[in-house]
């Protein structure tokens, strides 16, 4: 949609910074701005709580849709993985393989709506302010994440934790990350980021109370993203 006037900007929320995201960005070799947000500023400033999330910004710099789930297409990688391992019977799986299979089972239940999202995006690019998907400023603000005191404190806790982690004080960061998780449990970027720093697979660990599989099962995988409200 670039010829029609749409610019894409990707922002990686990664406390580990450029080296964590370099393989992905170099493989994608994008011709649009590709930025890195070590401090998760987009959580605090825009209300992002999960990825991928999209924000629409018009030509005047006005947000016309606040953060919402933004899958560009249906992922195929998990289906390929299942196919490759279909000859493995349950008893032959290692605990890691068994857990990975359970994670894939939950991922398949996650509701994603790429067709509807891309159709809406095309409509906005074609019609601008006249698009039915363009929201008025009051509605943009109303739909952005609520910020009661505990959510504001979660943002400060997470920022302090990631600052200490980046300064080389990984152990000191943990209580602040735990506080952020407790204060804003629906913020998956706070949780998944911190879990990744102790276990790339975001599995059970002795540092944090939660892990991806357990937390997703607690809320129900179908509630991992809110339904699109187009």
């Amino acid at each position, binding site marked *: 949609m670039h010829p029609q006037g749409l610019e894409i900007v990707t922002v990686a929320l990664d406390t580990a910074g450029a080296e964590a995201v*370099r393989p992905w960005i170099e493989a994608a070799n994008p011709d649009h701005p590709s930025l890195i947000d070590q401090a998760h500023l987009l959580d605090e400033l825009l*209300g992002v709580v999960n990825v991928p999330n999209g924000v629409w910004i018009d030509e005047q710099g006005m947000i016309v849709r606040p953060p919402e789930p933004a899958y560009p297409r249906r992922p195929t990688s998990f289906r390929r993985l299942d196919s490759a391992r279909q000859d493995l019977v349950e008893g032959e799986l290692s605990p890691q393989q068994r857990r990975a299979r359970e994670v894939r089972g939950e991922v398949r239940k996650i509701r994603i709506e790429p067709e509807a999202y891309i159709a809406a995006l095309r409509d906005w690019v074609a019609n601008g302010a006249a698009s039915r998907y363009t929201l008025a400023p009051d509605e943009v603000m109303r739909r952005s994440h609520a*910020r009661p005191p505990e*959510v504001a404190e979660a943002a400060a806790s997470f920022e302090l934790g990631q600052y200490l982690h980046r300064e080389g004080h990984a152990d000191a960061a943990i209580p602040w990350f735990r506080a952020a998780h407790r204060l804003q449990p629906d913020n998956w970027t706070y949780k998944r980021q911190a879990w990744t720093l102790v276990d790339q697979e975001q599995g059970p660990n002795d540092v944090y109370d939660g892990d991806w599989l357990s937390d997703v099962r607690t809320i129900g995988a179908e509630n991992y993203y809110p339904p699109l409200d187009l």
Partner: protein
Amino acid sequence: MILKTLVVDAQELERRTGWVIKPEGACKGEVCVPLPTMTGTAQVDARVLAERLRMPLLHDEVHDVWCLGPEAGGHTLSSAVLPDIVLPDLEGNPFALRELRGQKVLLVAWASW
């Protein structure tokens, strides 16, 4: 915002939070909150901001570092105007989203994890 002392630089406050220190107080959009005992507009006490703007102020005692969080209440977006966000690219070059004025922009947040 991360603080080494409880003195907040007004320019940094504006850049990071959108709150502007003026003679009449701390202002964001159409809202101005009076601040007590102001002697200038270049620096302000983090404890005053925390109290008047309902911002959390956290302290890590071991490393003696503070964090002043965003104001509580309402919603994350208190305006539909895109905040002035500047972030680095892979090579560390800063990029300001305001440079994209005049185009429609799809901002996509993602992560490697």
